[in-house]
């Protein structure tokens, strides 16, 4: 049962063929009070691709990312305009249940934030609250499977009851990724997942992202242009809340159309 759950739902196979966008955003504007943080962004995100959002600090890329699973809802005086859809459904529609949305659109944060619980409970928490598995055996399978997919299984299989916070920074971040994929999401949002990690841990996480890309739509915010070039197929360049340019990663990095993109990529500002 779990096996089938972790596999792709049948309708997705066709989606891949048709190259339909998993998520679309149309004219998205975000305001913090009177501060216009994100301006008129329209961007499509595909299931079998890694999309990276790059740009200087404060350009609104993280804000935009957090709109995709409504993590901005809890911020008072944050106002969002425009349309964001998941499989053609408006996620800001009042009929949408935020809890289900966030199960479908998972998130990995900048700083590794495992729960102060055991490694096992960290992974099992999501499936438990969504009722994906109630039997212990099913839960065990989900935990094993998620840790294997996150490439952490070999390192932690003997100490699943050790606290998740006792792992190293890179392991913690992969634990967070495993935790996110344990609820079998369709999209994974990553907010600078490697900024707190050393180069070796970063490489491991990047490999992991590469392996995951066929199964999930992945959106990653990053400050490292090398990282964006290495792992993503699509790149979007943000500046001062505007989406300056987006397209295939190779095109953005080799033949940017806009001058500001070229300046940023070549390190003239940012």
């Amino acid at each position, binding site marked *: 049962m779990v096996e089938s759950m972790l596999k792709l739902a049948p309708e997705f196979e066709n989606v891949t063929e048709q190259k339909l966008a998993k998520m679309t955003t149309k004219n998205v504007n975000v305001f913090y009070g009177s501060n216009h943080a994100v301006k008129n962004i329209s961007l499509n995100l595909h299931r079998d691709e890694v999309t990276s959002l790059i740009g200087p600090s404060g350009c609104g890329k993280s804000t935009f990312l957090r709109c995709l699973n409504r993590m901005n809802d809890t911020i008072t005086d944050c106002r969002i305009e425009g349309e964001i859809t998941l499989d053609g459904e408006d996620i800001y529609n009042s009929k949408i249940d935020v809890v289900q*949305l966030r199960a479908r659109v998972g*998130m990995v944060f900048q700083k590794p934030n495992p*729960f*102060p619980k055991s490694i096992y409970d960290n992974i099992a928490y999501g499936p438990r609250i969504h009722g994906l598995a109630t039997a212990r055996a099913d839960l065990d399978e989900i935990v094993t499977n998620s840790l294997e997919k996150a490439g952490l299984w070999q390192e932690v299989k003997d100490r699943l009851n050790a606290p998740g916070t006792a792992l190293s920074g890179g392991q913690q971040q992969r634990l967070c990724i495993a935790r996110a994929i344990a609820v079998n999401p369709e999209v994974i949002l990553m907010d600078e997942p490697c900024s707190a990690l050393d180069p070796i841990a970063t490489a491991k996480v990047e490999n992991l992202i590469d392996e995951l890309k066929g199964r999930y739509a992945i959106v990653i915010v990053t400050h490292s242009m090398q990282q964006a070039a290495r792992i993503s197929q699509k790149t979007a360049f943000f500046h001062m809340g505007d989406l300056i340019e987006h397209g295939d990663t190779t095109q953005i990095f080799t033949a940017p159309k806009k001058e500001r993109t070229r300046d940023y990529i070549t390190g003239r500002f940012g």
Partner: protein
Amino acid sequence: MSELPMNRPTNWQSPEIALRTKRRYRKEKIFHALGFSAVVIAGFFLVSLLGKIISDGSEGFIQTSIDVDIPFSSSILGDPRELGAAEFEKQIRQVNMLLLIQGAMNDYFPEVTKRKEKRQILRMFSTGAREQLRNIILSNPAVVGSTQRVRLLASDDIDQVIKGNIDISLPENNRKVKDVEIAWLTKFETEDRVSRNFHTRFFTSGDSREPELAGIWGATVGSALTLLVTLTIAFPVGVLTAIYLEEFAPKNRFTDILEININNLAAVPSIVFGLLGLAVFLGVMNLPRSAPLVGGLTLALMTLPTIIIASRAAIKAVPPSIRDAARGLGASPMQVVFHHVLPLAMPGILTGTIIGMAQALGETAPLLMIGMVAFIVDIPGSVTDAATALPVQIFLWADSPERAFTEKTSAAIMVLLAFLITMNGVAIWLRQKFERQW
């Protein structure tokens, strides 16, 4: 331009620098000395306070008794075999047990014949001695007809003489215990009939007008029941309020005013809460007077702000990244709070609660307002029975004229401190239990 200090190389060997270093060391030394002396002074006061209480109070756990050969004569008590068990018991409850002591004293002091002096002898024994004799007879009716040596409780004045708290070198008119009584007491002592024993009655009985009969158990139970009510009301209400204000309430003018008011409530003198309790719980709701229920409710009002403030601080200290992580996995706001925030905040919440409860345990003023200051002999059996509390009991005893109540007061303070330490110990244990989950 080259005259700017930062452009010149610093001479670390110069006398100015050496002087500066010396000054810095001196300042550190002075600060260290000040801090150390503050600790020493605080320690001195603590030790002398505890020392005084313990040296005074330890006497309160000891009580003087006199061994007396009591003839349990059947002419006074009746014969249990003739009367039957039920009839005999009824009779024993009516017989004046003083007659037994009087009989014993007539044998022991044959030289005393005056009525006044005979009565004086009887007053050397506690009024509780009668109860002692009655219990002996009721538990074993076979003693009737025999003479038994019984350890009778001495009166509080005799007890004070034995403990050396009444100075017998003073002129006779200036002390409560007269020369004849001391002479009689000396006779008891030379025959080795006077003994000082650990006074279990102090821990098992309620209040009394007689110091040698007064006990702390009634007040202890009263305090425990009061705190139980306080905890059951204040803890859930306080924690839920803190959760609501911190996690769910919108930030607007109304919640700002609410917050200021809660902070102000923490500073309101406790007697004002007593007035509130008097007006609302007794006046409007007509709850029973002097009851732990009302005391507990009043103290709960007093404790609430402390718990709310501490809980809010503890909840605020939970890193937002944990909330993000849970929300990002699709946890509902309730699940975020009850699965993640609350367990992490629990140690802090418990610390705040125990501070509030310790405050409530030591509080006297609000209890005076709602009538828990009454003289209550019975041990309260439920939260609606009349009761008193430990600090109020201490207050009452400290106010009593009898010399012997001084040591009882100190002994009661020791019991209160022991209660407090036990309570804190449990809280610390609980807190560590919660902290062990990382």
